[in-house]
């Protein structure tokens, strides 16, 4: 296959993934409405019979419908994720020479959202994340739309400085951590929403696990993401920076914000062990961390011109004009 046809394949796979994710989202929404209908029936039954009632006694049909759509949703998400993966691989093969698919923001978004989905699918059983499905899938659909509409860029080779295997490791781990932090952040958001009305047992909130479980799931995923982020930002990042720019830590805005994210998440882990900060405040801190993470990825490119990490504009490895212009030497 030629590079152009790889690129076309990638674009088509993204479109297909978007559509299937959307179908998965609909399946999960139907599932939820079926379940809330079930709950409503349950409440009515309770009032009518005047006796204790459990979900096990619900109309079997309702129950089955919910479960069917849940399974359908997961299946569709799996298919969409496969398309998503094809899109990523094709994107890498479309470049000459073949390369990792994260040369710009479009590709980074594509990879980041894939990690969110993959992490969700992998952890689905283990942490019983079924309740998260519509949120995760909805998030991914929106991100993919943003990527295709606003961030799209044609395939281009990496600039020289981006061409390093340390960079590959660095970005893989950064994307992995970003996906995991995002997933964990969704759990923290739901925690905060639920914390306002912990007793609710109907509707959406009723379906969500208890506060304890939410807190623990959020912590577990954060606890996975934090070391990965540490590895990305404080080990591989500096090693690469050292090779490319002669100094392993330059305090350029992208690095500063990666550091801020790291410190805030360290704060989150601390908060979980500090009296008076457990629970709500810790969850808020986690979301602050997530905000700094996404700001670093999206916002900083528009805020600051001096970052050397060119995602917004392909990096030009040019002489440091500023330093030379200051030079007082008159040769």
């Amino acid at each position, binding site marked *: 296959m030629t590079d152009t046809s790889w690129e076309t394949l990638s674009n088509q796979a993204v479109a297909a993934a978007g559509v299937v994710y959307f179908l998965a989202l609909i399946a999960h929404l139907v599932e939820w409405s079926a379940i809330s209908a079930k709950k409503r029936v349950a409440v009515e039954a309770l009032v009518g019979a005047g006796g204790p009632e459990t979900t096990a006694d619900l109309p079997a049909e309702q129950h089955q419908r919910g479960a069917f759509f849940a399974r359908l949703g997961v299946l569709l998400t799996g298919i969409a994720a496969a398309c998503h993966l094809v899109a990523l691989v094709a994107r890498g093969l479309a470049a000459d020479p073949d390369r990792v698919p994260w040369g710009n923001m479009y590709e980074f978004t594509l990879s980041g959202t894939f990690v969110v989905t993959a992490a969700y699918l992998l952890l689905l059983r283990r942490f019983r994340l079924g309740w998260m499905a519509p949120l995760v899938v909805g998030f991914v659909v929106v991100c993919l739309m943003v990527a295709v509409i606003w961030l799209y860029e044609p395939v281009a080779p990496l600039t020289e400085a981006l061409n390093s295997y340390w960079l590959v490791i660095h970005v893989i781990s950064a994307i992995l951590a970003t996906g995991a932090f995002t997933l964990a952040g969704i759990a923290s958001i739901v925690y905060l929403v639920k914390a306002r009305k912990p007793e609710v047992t109907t509707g959406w909130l009723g379906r969500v696990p208890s506060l304890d479980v939410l807190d623990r799931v959020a912590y577990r995923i954060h606890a996975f993401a934090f070391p990965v982020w540490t590895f990305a930002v404080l080990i591989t990042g500096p090693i690469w920076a050292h090779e490319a720019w*002669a100094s392993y830590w330059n305090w350029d805005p992208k690095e500063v914000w990666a550091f801020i994210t790291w410190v805030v998440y360290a704060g989150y882990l*601390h908060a979980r062990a500090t009296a008076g900060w457990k629970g709500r405040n810790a969850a808020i801190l986690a979301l602050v961390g997530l905000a700094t993470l996404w700001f670093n990825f999206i916002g900083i490119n528009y805020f600051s011109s001096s970052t050397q990490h060119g995602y917004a504009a392909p990096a030009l490895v040019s002489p440091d004009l500023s330093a030379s212009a200051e030079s007082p030497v008159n040769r």
Partner: protein
Amino acid sequence: MTRPGQLPDISDDAAVGERSEAPGGRRSGELTARELLRWAWRQLTSMRTALVLLLLLALASVPGSVIPQSGVDSLGVSQWQDDHPKLTPVYERLGLFDVYSSPWFAAIYLLLMVSLVGCILPRLAVYWRAMCAQPPAAPRNLTRLPDSASYLTDEAPEVVLARARGILRGHRLRDGERADAVSAERGHLREAGNLLFHLSLIIVLVGFAMGSMLGYKGGVIVVVGKDYGFTNTLNQYDDFDPGSLFRADDLDPFTFNIADFNVEWLMDGPRQGMARGFESTLDYCQKCDGTDDRTYDLKVNHPLDIGGTEVFLIGHGYAPVITIRDGEGNIAYSGPTVFLPENQTFFSFGVVKAPTAKPQQIGLDGVFYPTFILDDRGNPATLMGQANNPLISMLVHTGDLNLDAGPQSVYYLDKSKTQQVMTPGEREKPLRLDLSLGESATLPDGLGTVSFDGVERWNKLQISQSPGKRIALAGVVLALLGLLGSLFIRPRRVWVRARRTDDGTLVEVAALDRSGGGDTAAVVTELVAALRGPDDTKDQP
């Protein structure tokens, strides 16, 4: 006397010295300096302070990403300062152009480190004692613990307990225990991981501090060719940024020149005309007595290490060879002139100064097109970065170049005492010299001639020493290992008690997780299932 842990009340402005020397003994509620210190220490080393300091550190890092920093973007700093003349002195006083080496930033992280040491040392002691001690004995009432279970069985208590010991083999068991219970513990290494993580942060800081105090970073532009080169002495650098403790005689002696330079140009695709890769061949020596001449292929991401000093290739550009003959026919200037690229097409800007020209000094400023074309609308442009059809386009100034006024950048022409040379016959139109390779032009009014004789290439090299980088790296790696231990090892205590009752043997199982991340309910369920085996059917009470 305040007891440890009790908050003494102190008035805000109580000076420590005064208090302790207060005559006539102490009134109640009064503090000695020692108590105050101890109280302050306890505050500083509390988890809450650590958390607040961490958040402060994050907050304090923000301004440096919004305001240009002199270490990162000095051009940005001077532009910003030109745009904000009022704010500049205030910002300067606050150190906002150099946030990360400002005293207030240092204050935060140093406090954090002190807090960390104060927090970690006592924990080390506690940890040591816990390592030596036995797992704690089973609490009297196991079923009161949040995660516990119990069941009845016909087996003898001894049999159950023996099986429990077998199942809990990976744990540390309390020995010499009263006969009716097994106490087990595991995951001690979590605490060790936590300690390792925090201590390693100090190592990282030390390594980092060594780099920024003892190291330096300098940049130099070197023209490609055997006739040019670089010797590692201070006056050869274009810019030099030493750490506060760096001394010029710490510079390693070496000399190099760039024997060859190659660029790979993209001939198609969306980045057509731009450089993909570039590579220099560097001839270098340290003693330079003919015994240690060596060659290295210098590339981006592929630095050269010369005895602890590293040389990086970070950019390149063109240096048109320009000659100016003055009105008397003498060569007033000749040689490759470094032009700075403005963008990826290597459309570049440069300045030529000929202060010895007679009758008048001559200065040129203008641009360089590597592959000159006229675009669709007839505007000059460059097709690509490769020098296929090089052209310089210069404006001419004469008069006093003001070089006596002090050091001047080579990329800047001081026009305060010069006049621009106009096109002969057209007084309103500045004279522009558009010269292709090999062409020359005669200046009006007997000023002289300018010729464009050739195109050389230059490399921008960054040369630096960063001592302590291995220490810092080792520190982060250790920190990561510690972190993994700290986050993934679940410290857990498990107890099993079995005793005879009228209905049979009552077995109680309980587990406690001190990390807050574990699922102890599952642990209990699994343990019960394992203890009962597949064929024990007696119900839970």
